[in-house]
């Protein structure tokens, strides 16, 4: 029996797309490993404000999400809640996320008219989908969002927990940190006092690139989250937060 030519063509296209986008590495280019940072740099690094620190309560962002031909706009609301608010969820996707003790983070994206696109619950080890707009209810998409939000909300590793690298051209510092298969690369200024971006992945599909504009605040004023594999761009602008 011959395989259906259309299916074969689609399969080849899919594999080609995955192969091409899979080539994008989350490890920044042009790095060379460096021994532990000097005490001064380490001290500066430790003083960088932790984004979404332990005391973080909630934040409201203006949000634009592009996935393929779909363009969604609205508001993203992030709220950290005590673990007593944990509820059973429709679907859970396992991710190695280690937030501050016993809290959950609820992430709700709605359009301008208030209609919810998705309502997610980020737990220490998984992402729960409380609700999602049906066309978005794709397991692969939640895997991508799970890694993206885990990367966004993860506490900053300490100086000693990092494997340090220097970028040849810019002298920027990169901290590599991993838990299990969750690989993370944090890119800092040469003085180790500003976080520019971070990249992470657990599999080939969920490669995530996050760029920040933090203005030295604990809540970044702008966040751009991207995933080249599924051609996802999620742009956030801070409106309010505490």
């Amino acid at each position, binding site marked *: 029996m011959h395989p259906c030519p259309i299916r074969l063509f689609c399969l080849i296209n899919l594999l080609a797309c995955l192969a091409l986008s899979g080539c994008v590495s989350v490890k920044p280019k042009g790095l060379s490993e460096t021994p532990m940072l000097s005490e001064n740099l380490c001290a500066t690094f430790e003083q960088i404000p932790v984004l979404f620190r332990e005391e973080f309560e909630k934040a409201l962002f203006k949000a634009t999400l592009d996935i393929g031909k779909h363009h969604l706009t609205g508001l993203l609301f992030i709220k950290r809640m005590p673990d007593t608010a944990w509820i059973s969820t429709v679907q859970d996707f396992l991710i190695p996320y280690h937030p501050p003790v016993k809290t959950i983070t609820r992430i709700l994206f*709605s359009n301008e008219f208030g209609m919810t696109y998705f*309502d997610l619950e980020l737990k220490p080890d998984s992402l729960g989908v409380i609700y999602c707009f049906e066309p978005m209810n794709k397991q692969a998409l939640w895997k991508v969002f799970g890694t993206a939000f885990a990367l966004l909300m993860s506490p900053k590793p300490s100086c000693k927990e990092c494997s340090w690298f220097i970028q040849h051209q810019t002298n920027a510092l990169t901290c590599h940190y991993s838990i299990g298969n969750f690989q993370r690369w944090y890119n800092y200024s040469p003085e180790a006092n500003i976080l520019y971006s971070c990249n992470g992945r657990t599999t080939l599909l969920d490669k995530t690139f996050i760029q920040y504009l933090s203005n030295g605040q604990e809540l970044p004023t702008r966040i751009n989250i991207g995933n080249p594999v599924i051609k996802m761009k999620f742009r956030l602008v801070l409106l309010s937060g505490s």
Partner: protein
Amino acid sequence: MLKIIPFFFLISSLTLQAQQKNLDAVTIQLVREGVALAAQTTQTISCDFTQQKEMSMLKDQIISRGKFFFKKEQSLRWEYTYPFSYLIVIHNDEVTIRSDDNVTKFSAQTNKVFTEINRIILGSIRGTILNDSSFSTSFYPANTGYLVKLVPLSPGLRENLTKIMIFFNRTDFTVDKLELYEQAGDYTIIDFSEKKINAPLPDQTFLLD
């Protein structure tokens, strides 16, 4: 078991009493005709709006405010002024959004939620929603007019909304308030105030460069 049955009946009867009473057939006809006439005679609407999204499980709310404009047949302009400045113009099937000097245009068809909200709002203003076969419709008295409760019948709509409540003004049959109830238990209330009906609105109001 037998002891439970009278208690069950008591609770059921109390629940029934607590339910709102439907409008009678004559008043329903009056509302239908009033809304249809208002739709016919309304060329433009300019008003303020306050939008309140209640997130039940998050025990929180998001409040937005702005100005709303409508021009017959299908032009809408939502001018959000709070919590951020934002402009949405829906003209026929094209959505244009202006935010931070960036203008984005896309077809409403690429965003299903947008399409549905647009249909509900336009249908409420133009009165067509009361005859829309994709909803079951029931009528109730309300403080300032009439409440029409719409329950989506089509599976596509039911995935997002459990019910829509439209509050029509007793005097001019325009929409005072819209409530959208979502599957997850959250709901959004949009209050329209300071309405100006048929005030001149230039076409440029619905054009964004």
